[in-house]
């Protein structure tokens, strides 16, 4: 019986979340998503499929877009994680505002992941076409299916950013 319990023995992990050091103590199998939500209190990242299919848990891990449900918390020792909360420290970002204006937000559970993935897209491909946006975003499911509205929001934010820079 105690065999089963050994998996629950916690391991200490220190990482940075949105620029702040965070210490968590987690069993080996706990995902970064669960650790962020349940141990570190960052509940903005959402859990739906837990298989890396829906993108609701998207975060930046050392600057790279990942599905936090497919990363173990113990793998992130010393890493720098940015969650949706980290994208709106000084109020809503341009992208978040465009999501609202475009009518892209319905129930909202997929939206944090959509915003993170869209932010990654705008950073890596500032001039993305509608087709490229659809391709890059197709790992983020929306069942209310605001897809068309989200594409419009990303295009609007991209236009503004390109104009400004």
């Amino acid at each position, binding site marked *: 019986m105690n065999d089963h319990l050994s998996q629950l023995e916690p391991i200490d992990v220190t990482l940075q979340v949105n620029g702040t050091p965070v210490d968590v103590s987690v069993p080996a199998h706990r995902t970064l998503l669960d650790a962020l939500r349940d141990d570190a209190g960052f509940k903005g990242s959402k*859990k739906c499929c837990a298989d890396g299919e829906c993108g609701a848990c998207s975060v930046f891990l050392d600057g790279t877009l990942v599905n936090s449900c497919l990363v173990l918390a113990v793998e992130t020792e010393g890493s720098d994680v940015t969650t949706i909360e980290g994208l709106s420290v000084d109020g*809503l970002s341009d992208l978040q505002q465009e999501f609202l204006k475009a009518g892209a937000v319905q*129930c909202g*559970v997929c*939206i944090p992941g959509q915003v993170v993935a869209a932010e990654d897209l705008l950073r890596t491909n500032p001039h993305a076409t509608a087709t490229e946006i659809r*391709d890059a975003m197709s790992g983020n499911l929306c*069942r*209310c*299916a*605001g897809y068309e509205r989200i594409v419009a929001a990303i295009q609007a934010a991209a236009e503004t950013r390109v104009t400004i820079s």
Partner: protein
Amino acid sequence: MSGHGKPDDQITLGSAVGESVLRYGGADRVSGAQQYLSDLEFPDTAHVAFTTIESGCAQINSIDTSAAEQLPGIVAIVSADDLPNAKRFGISHQDRPLLATDTVNFHGEPVVAVVAESTEIARLAADLIEVDFTPLPGVYDLDSALADDARLVQEPDVRPGDPLNHSNVLETAEYAWGDVAADEPSAHVIVEDTYNFPMVNHFTIEPGGVIARPYEETGVEVHSPIQHPFLLQRILASIHDLPLNKVRVVAPDPGGGFGGKQTPRYEPLMAHLAMRTQRTCRLVLSLEENFQLMRRSGCRIHARTGFAADGSIVFHQMDVDFHIGAYADVAPRIMAKGSYVGAGPYRIPSVTVDARAVLTNTTPSCAFRGFGAPQVGWATESQIDAGARALGMDGLEIRRKNLVDAGEAFIRGDHEATADGHWHESLEKAAELLEWDTPKPPNRGRGIAVGIKPGATSGLSQSLVRLLYDGSAIVYAGTSDMGQGARTLWKQILSDELGVALEQITIISGDTESVPFDLQTSASRSTVFMGGAVLMACEDIRRRVLELYAEVTDVDPDTLDHRPGTIMTPAGTVPLVEAAQTALGKLRGEFVGQGTNRLRGKSGHPLGGDAAFYEFNATAIEVEVDPDTGEVLLVRHATVGDVGKELNPIQVRSQDEGAAIMGLGHSLMEQVMLDDNGCIRNLGALDYRIPTYNDVAVDMLSASIENEDGPGPYGCKGISEGALLCTAGAVGAAVADAIGVPIRDLPLTAERIWKAMQARDSATADN
């Protein structure tokens, strides 16, 4: 119409309705601050996990919990044996047990509930519990459920006194008018076929869950992302023998509902566990568990339709079997309501619809956007196109011929229903958007279809509005905001009706302790019903302000009047807020208005009453089919709804596109697949596919017809299901047009289309 949302401060006071006001609660949703069920935290929480078995139908022989009991941190382990006096529950039929009792009746039905100090311990314990079971010959499809020797999904004593309780038919519905036998000879062409609509999952991005807590000594407080908090309150009170005031239901905004979160499932059990352990008990579902909680009813329709030489429909006959699952939930009503509009919005002299709700050992089906209408509509729309093909007409022409005009009956007989809109306008607009008459490149096909769905038929919605002294306001409205944006509309209505700035309005919902009764959030009813209640509450406030203003200023109330946002006096208009302040005086205070909007049902009506409105939609689709693989590319998808009035254009568009894309799911790719033991083969996101960004049409077009002819505020109608009603019909017709042969079973997977092309080619070769 504005195509882009506007911040509150860019809207002129008094003209919020009709503008794309940004959604209420939007900022929290884009920043991750919105608290859904799984984001709620309570002190001293215990965690719940279920033990299930890998079988869709089995006799439970014994349960060994010994290994699980030895784990540290176990609070309770509960199976049906521990609940000897537990009642079954349900909406129309009290057939669902708290935990599987003697038998497991569908894959994933919980057998044991473990309450533990952590989610990990609970899961571990649930997995260590061994259930010894004997597989039974379950019925997993319509044919096996309807066979003479079929095993009964429900023992007859679950439905005592029911004449059908020795069969797997739970309920039936029959609609008929005219005389098919008499009209049949005038048919020039008769088409007859069988159509299948798959079981599909809601796939809400929030899988769901329940948190239950002891409340006021003997009571219980249940947090659930439920669409109908008051229904849940009623059922919890009834099953646990509690007065309503001892049952508090708190409903955080559902993370997607689509009908899937209307009815109680695990809440009664969770309430029991909380009362039994006197702990806060938390259950957060996985997506796999969500698949075992809700689905759309599958459906098989046999249809026979006669057409005159000019394309007029002469008669239409349907036998409709809904494949509803192991417990009733609201499936009998889905069967009744979906088949009520089974003959579509057409002028048909003779119709018979015979429908059955058939129990099977599968996930209990429940409400899902369209409420039975998409299933039956798939067959009827396909039959109309079959008639058109036989007569050498096109899909637009035959619908122009048969679609009813405003005010004309499309359901005849004792409970006639007439068109409450100018539906031809939607049809023409959809055809125009698709450029229906332009030439088509090779491998392309076009289809057009229409759909109708009856709105709510009865029920009460109440709202309270408090106009505070400083001109801000609080609205209490029980509608669940699951994405449709109801609260945004209440804000718009209130702003215009009371002359209160949008940013000074707060909406309270989702708590039976503080919010007055609302029957439910379903059937696209809320804008009409609750919107009307909010409007009435505002008028009530204006009357009260007027009365007190008259008294305080010592004028004859008969010389005063009120209009949205203002009190009219002989000396001129006074803004309502100013009049309210004058009326309240130095000691201040507030005005409370009440709105009560009740639609009374009609006894004897098969739906319990006339629909308050009909949702009508026309969808036109152009596809390109890969002739070698059968893959479908959606070239253009145009959806047009008859909405009455767009209270918030961007929200209407968002709902319309969303419904249209959801419709593509069951049309092209979605289906719950079972193995021989009734277990779901594609459980979870890896092998149950829903549309992604890349599965939407290259051109996705959405438009509305606005004639301000609805029963809701400002002439609006409900709008959030329309664009899904006839997606399948339009896609099906487009694919048939592209490949030259129709396909009658959904979804239209590439493989199915390829097989149809193979059959077509071998038939050609044979000739």
